[in-house]
């Protein structure tokens, strides 16, 4: 009799345990609608388009992984203006209930943030590193590390190389100002022996930089840090070559765009910049992503695609674990610590800010490659 009861008890425990295991790993959600607000036209269209590709690839993989979860994306163009972002957000909301919204670029992200917060919609910002986005204990997160992290890496490089006279050229938008200010602060913090001899903003549509380059040359800058679109960087490098001015040019993440290689094939050689994604990286997430992206779109992914991809994955994984319990979704994302991703190991803080390492890349033989040594 005792043996019989024991067997029944054991079967019961196994059954309950099995039921719990099956149900705890099963998705807690059956359908998700995610609005994606990108800059699909205008100056930042290239970056928005790459983000869109990353998001769609992640969606495809997630649907294969969680066959029962229907993921719907609603892409809307922000025209790279705050008003366009708000228009797009309202258009998405008008199409039906939305569980999360991905916002591309800082001005759009900032304009949408209060709306998403008021609606209780999870917001995942990509290519948005402006500091003001940080806000504690809400549903706003991002896959772009704050400008301080990027500036830290390039400041380290500048200090190591002991450049004596640094010039800074930045586009006059939120990113340009944030990155250049972060770099100045970081250099000061490090006590670097580098003097900033020139710092000037330019309008994003500028094409003629010869005046600034002449001033930089006259100031004797031996390194010039450029915060601009790849098209800006290409023009600066070409025009510097025309002026026979050859300092070490440095840049930040938006430099990596095929435009740089096609518009400045010779002058871009040796250009060094900070980046957060290496498609040739050896980690499993990066290799899988790069391979799948190349198969899908016929070219290598960049950081914008990677940020969109990572953002989409984080959103869906959070909902799969928590269902529509937004408190749980927020806690899950905030609790991520050294979580492997295509952007390296991600750690979120209570502000929804992500932390990961930036590294240096360069243009070598007409290709974007990781900088060795």
């Amino acid at each position: 009799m005792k043996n019989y009861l024991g067997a029944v008890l054991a079967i019961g425990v196994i059954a309950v345990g099995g039921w719990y295991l099956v149900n705890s790993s099963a998705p807690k959600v059956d359908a998700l609608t995610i609005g994606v607000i990108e800059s699909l036209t205008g100056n930042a269209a290239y970056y928005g388009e790459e983000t869109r590709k990353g998001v769609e690839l992640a969606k495809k993989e997630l649907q294969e992984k969680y066959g029962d979860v229907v993921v719907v994306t609603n892409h809307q163009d922000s025209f790279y203006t705050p008003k366009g972002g708000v228009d797009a957000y309202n258009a998405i909301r008008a199409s039906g209930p939305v569980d999360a919204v991905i916002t591309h670029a800082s001005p759009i992200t900032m304009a949408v943030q209060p709306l998403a917060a008021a609606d209780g919609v999870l917001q995942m910002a990509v290519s948005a590193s402006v500091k003001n986005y940080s806000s504690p204990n809400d549903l706003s997160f991002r896959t772009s590390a704050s400008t301080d992290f990027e500036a830290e890496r390039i400041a380290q490089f500048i200090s190591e190389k002991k450049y004596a006279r640094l010039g800074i050229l930045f586009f006059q938008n939120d990113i340009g100002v944030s990155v250049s200010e972060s770099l100045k602060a970081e250099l000061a913090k490090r006590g670097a022996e580098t003097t900033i001899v020139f710092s000037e903003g330019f309008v994003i549509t500028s094409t003629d930089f010869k005046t600034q380059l002449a001033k930089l040359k006259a100031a004797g800058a031996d390194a010039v840090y450029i915060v601009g679109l790849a098209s800006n960087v290409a023009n600066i490098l070409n025009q510097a070559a025309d002026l026979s001015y050859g300092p070490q040019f440095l840049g930040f993440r938006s430099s990596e765009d095929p435009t740089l290689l096609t518009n400045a094939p010779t002058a871009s050689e040796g250009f060094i910049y900070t980046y957060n994604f290496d498609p040739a990286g050896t980690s499993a997430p990066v290799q899988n992503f790069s391979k799948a992206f190349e198969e899908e779109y016929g070219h290598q992914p960049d950081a914008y695609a990677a940020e969109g991809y990572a953002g989409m994955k984080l959103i869906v994984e959070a909902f799969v674990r928590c269902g529509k319990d937004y408190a749980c979704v927020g806690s899950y994302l905030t609790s991520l610590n050294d979580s492997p991703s295509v952007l390296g190991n991600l750690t979120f803080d209570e502000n929804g800010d992500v932390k990961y390492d930036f590294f240096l890349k360069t243009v070598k033989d007409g290709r974007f490659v990781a900088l060795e040594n």
Partner: protein
Amino acid sequence: MEYLVHLAIIFAIYAILAVSLQLIVGFTGLISLAHAAFYGVGAYSVALILENTGFGFFPALVLGILVSAIAAFLIGIVLSKFRDDYYALGSLGFTVIVFSIFLNWQELTRGPLGIPGINRPELFGFVFSENIVYLGLALILLGLCYAFSTFVTKSSFGRALQAIREDEVALSVFGYHTSWFKLAVFVMGAGMAAIAGGLFASYITFIDPSSFGVPESVFMLSVIILGGLGSLRGAVIGALVLVLLPEALRFVGFTPDIAAQMRQVIYGLMLVFLMLYRPQGLAGTYRL
């Protein structure tokens, strides 16, 4: 519904801009590209006053109108000596200067970082936080601007403006100081543009210089040309069409990889055809 309310608010803001610009361009014949600057002055004034003082939205809006009107008065003294392309160039220069101030005076405007977290209007403890209520406020202000503009255009002052448009020299022969009329209508238009700016700032709750540059002035000019010059009704219709058309195109079923680009192509084509077949605009009485 919420989306329609949002579009209606944006329409009301642009209708105020269009009606006020119509006074300057459509009724007086002065091609002004300075309207985005006054729109921005209103927006930044309201945002900065709300952020840095204890004033509420409505006193801030009144101060914003004053700041914009004073700026218009100062620049208008110079501009009112010109007309036609010289006026357009002078007003364009003013917009570029104001845009540069928004962009570069970082201690005041925060430059490209913009001003986030602008509060919604509050009146006797009632906060206009719901969009439908905000729409009511926007429509009331539009109604007031429209009524004021109607009064102006139907007055003897308005008839003088139209006479300036038709033949400024002839009017000055009769002893009219046309430059004062031009200055006055410019200041009125700027004040109303500031109302639109204040509404925009407190509705979107985030402003940066990108919303107040030369392209925005060109867009406002397109609104009144498409709606029809010399007609307040045309200005409102123009705002309705140009605000709603790009939004309606969001729902045309293109695949995501080409949707945004195709919308812009269709939008551009529709405007070209409209101007080809209706060059006087939708409700215009006057052609430039």
